[in-house]
């Protein structure tokens, strides 16, 4: 019988590798009995979903390229364009 602390580690590991069927059975049985671990597993699933799309929601407030960097990059882009033409 796994403890809750072990179940949450297996819950994460289960997202990384295929665990043996008997371990997965035991986890399922544990989730049925333990509301907190069940909730934890669902929240981890949601976090994975959010990680999958977070690059589409990158906030840029208060965090912008400096004018210096912009000028430097623009100059480089011009150089590359000119060589290509």
């Amino acid at each position, binding site marked *: 019988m796994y*403890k809750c602390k072990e179940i949450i580690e297996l819950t994460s590991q289960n997202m990384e590798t295929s665990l043996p069927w008997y371990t997965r059975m035991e986890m399922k049985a544990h989730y049925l009995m333990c509301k907190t671990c069940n909730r934890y597993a669902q929240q981890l699933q949601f976090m994975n979903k959010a990680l999958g799309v977070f690059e589409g929601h990158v906030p840029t407030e208060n965090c912008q390229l400096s004018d210096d960097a912009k000028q430097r990059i623009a100059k480089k882009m011009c150089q*590359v364009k000119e060589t290509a033409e």
Partner: protein
Amino acid sequence: MAQQIKTAPENWLSEYGDILYRYALIRVRSEATAEDLVQETLLAGLQAVERFSGKSTVRTWLISILKHKIIDHFRKNRHEITVLNDDETAEDVLAYQFDQQGNWKINLIEWGTPEKSMDNEQFWVAFNECLSRLPQRMADLLLLRAVDGLATEECCELLGFDTDNQLWVTLSRTRVKLRQCLETNWFSKE
């Protein structure tokens, strides 16, 4: 085809520069490195513009180039990776959540339908904030695995884990920390 690009390359920097920069900064946590990565990305985009199929948006396309540049950055700099933060074991979070027998000490609050939060830009501010609070190597690991889908073996090699098991334990603790942060900074305030 190039003519399908709605945003002309001369506007990339003004349109997408800040987004690329912010994404790079989340991943590498160094302003100078993030600036270099934005530059490399835009230059690579410029050189590959003929191959852009127009199937995705320019923004998505540039971010995918940036993601490759970030992985290259990790590959080039792997010898520099050191564990800077002994907080990485997350024992504090585990001790807060579990008693000595390994049973929960706290109640996890109900997140309801968390997918609804994904439409709220403020949620993403909190999400990014929580990612930035993770110790560097933990964040690197989580994002290389869950976002970039890099193989476990390569993550071990890039981030200096000796065994798969060590990596899994760290990943689990990273998720514990991120979950706790999201709960404190978003779901308990909703």
